[in-house]
């Protein structure tokens, strides 16, 4: 088991390195470089940079060197100093901006993930047990609609409904009076209230998908001979259901757990822009519109690394849950 985990972690290292290549490439993508963007900013602020100033700055930053050396400088700064570059939009180091928004980004992502699994697994089991019943068709219909509606528009519709029913579109993550207030019970409740729409909107598509996967797995497992064996032993139906098919059907679900992080980031990016949530989405969006590439690239890097971490954890979890892999590494 330990052997497997170490092997799996080692395999993730080249992946991380390549991800940093891609992110660096993307940072370099837009026409112009850091210095020309910077000088545009300065011009807007009323100061003029001469060509010599710009060349000087390029030399200082190493921008006149070949691409691979620039990459080396970039990655060295990150690894050694935690320096991800400078954000024009926020006028502070990228890391500070990331820190400011990472907390709530993770809260929204993790709550959404919990929501997905807590909703999808029971519904998947239920619809499999009651295959072809009215409830089964109802949930199938809902999941199809959930997969087909772009989540940002669902956000608008829910916002509109919340506005007409409760008189509050529930924009953002906090009501005005709590935005700058210190943490308290009331603020937490306020946050939870504001989380309802985002979590539903972000999670719906993946939840719909998960329900279908879980239902399919359960239908497979319910027809397996080991269920008949369990029944022939005289176990109660409830015990059979949870001990045999459910346990076996959960395995492939666990393996989706890492990837679901990536789909949550996708969903939350656009939903957060529409709902104006103080998380990663709008920050990255504004950064891209303003070609603030160090900030945008760093967010991309963080999200990809979190996904790699997620898949790493779910792979190890899967191995631990699957007796075949677990016993493979057991000494005789």
């Amino acid at each position: 088991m330990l052997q497997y985990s170490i092997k799996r972690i080692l395999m993730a290292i080249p992946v991380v390195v390549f991800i940093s290549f891609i992110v660096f490439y993307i940072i370099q993508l837009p026409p112009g470089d850091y210095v020309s963007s910077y000088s545009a900013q300065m011009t807007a602020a009323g100061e003029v940079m001469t060509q010599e100033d710009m060349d000087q700055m390029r030399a200082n930053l190493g921008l006149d060197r070949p691409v691979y050396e620039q990459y080396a400088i970039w990655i060295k700064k990150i690894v050694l100093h935690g320096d991800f570059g400078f954000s024009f939009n926020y006028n502070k180091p990228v890391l500070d901006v990331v820190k400011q928004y990472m907390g709530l980004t993770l809260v929204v992502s993790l709550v959404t993930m919990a929501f997905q699994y807590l909703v999808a697994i029971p519904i998947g089991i239920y619809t499999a047990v009651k295959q072809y019943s009215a409830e089964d068709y109802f949930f199938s219909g809902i999941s199809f609609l959930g997969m087909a509606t772009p989540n940002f528009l669902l956000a608008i519709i829910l916002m509109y409904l919340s506005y007409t029913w409760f008189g509050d579109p529930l924009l953002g993550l906090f009501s005005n009076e709590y935005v700058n207030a210190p943490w308290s019970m009331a603020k937490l409740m306020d946050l939870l209230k504001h989380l309802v729409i985002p979590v539903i909107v972000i999670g719906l598509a993946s939840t719909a998908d998960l329900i279908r996967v879980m239902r399919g797995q359960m239908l497979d497992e319910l027809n397996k001979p080991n269920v008949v064996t369990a029944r022939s032993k005289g176990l109660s139906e409830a015990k059979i259901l949870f001990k045999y098919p459910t346990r076996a059907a959960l395995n492939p679900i666990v393996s989706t757990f890492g990837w679901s992080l990536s789909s949550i980031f996708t969903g939350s990016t656009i939903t957060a822009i529409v709902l104006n949530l103080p998380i990663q989405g709008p920050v990255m969006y504004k950064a891209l519109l303003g070609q603030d590439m160090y900030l945008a690239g760093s967010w991309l890097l963080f999200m990809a690394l979190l996904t790699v971490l997620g898949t790493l954890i779910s792979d190890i979890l899967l191995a631990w849950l699957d007796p075949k892999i677990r016993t493979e590494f057991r000494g005789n």
Partner: protein
Amino acid sequence: MTTQTVQAAQTGKDGQPLLSVQDLKIRIKMDNGTMHAVDGVDFVIKRGQTLGLVGESGCGKSLTSRAIIGINPKECETTGKIVYDDESDSDLDLLALDPKGKRIRSIRGRKIAMIFQEPMTAFSPMYTIGNQIVEAIRTHRTKNKKEAKKIALEMLGKVGISDQEKRFDQYPHEFSGGMRQRAMISMALSCNPELLIADEPTTALDVTIQAQVLELMQALQREFGMAILLVTHDLGIIAEMCDEVAVMYLGKIVEQAPVKELFYNPKHPYTKGLMKSMPRLGGEKSVRLESIEGSVPMPIDMPPMCGFYDRCKDRIEGVCNARAVPKTYISDQHTVRCFLYTGRQEGEPS
């Protein structure tokens, strides 16, 4: 190996009826009609004895055996009576019980246990063998974990699994096919059942392992004194194991007799065909194995006629395909469903 079961300890109520299946019918609704998978099956299983149920795949023998403990899928509409001689109620109709209820569950695994064809898939790959055996014991015999484990280890020893302590904590995929079937038998017998239903117990095993497992079953039957319902398509196994044989074809029992009578004096054309298709030791070398022409039809919306009509060499047109075939008594213990024989028929006084 000889048919040693006959010498089984004739103690107490041995030979008394334990379970009788009466007019069992199983229908399955399909897209294109209703399939009469089992169509009026009767037989009696006696204490301490072995009844063989033989037939081609799809003849309804597995459904029949599973109907006894009510574990067929819910699409199967089952009628008839399955009377079980229980301690508390000698006239208990198992079919009348709620298939999900407590009463039938107290019989499943405890009084009537079952072993299956595919020992790989019959165990869940997610739990250790020990876990799955102990589960049966803790359901019926003792709530105590330690005691249950002790019984399980003892049973594993009885079925010839050495190094039980280690085996107990292993998963099904770490067992060989024969080992798994042994473990399956130990699980089935862990609660001392009165009847063991064995559904093609050796079909998935190598020939040499087959013989070992069959021998083991016989030895355990002698030790525990249970009855066995052996479902198989293999006449060789029937000859070795059984006291009595019922031959099934297309949902009906076409012939039923004690094992020797059936082998030396088969009556139904189908039974005769089966015998001829079986290789024999010491037979004349030049004799070719015969096969039965045609294949088994699907019993969907079948008119009242002999199901073997299409494949039968001795069919009588206008008779065999005109009405349902009654059960005819060749002797007290030998019955056949065929118009070729005359004698006392079912429903007539003896």
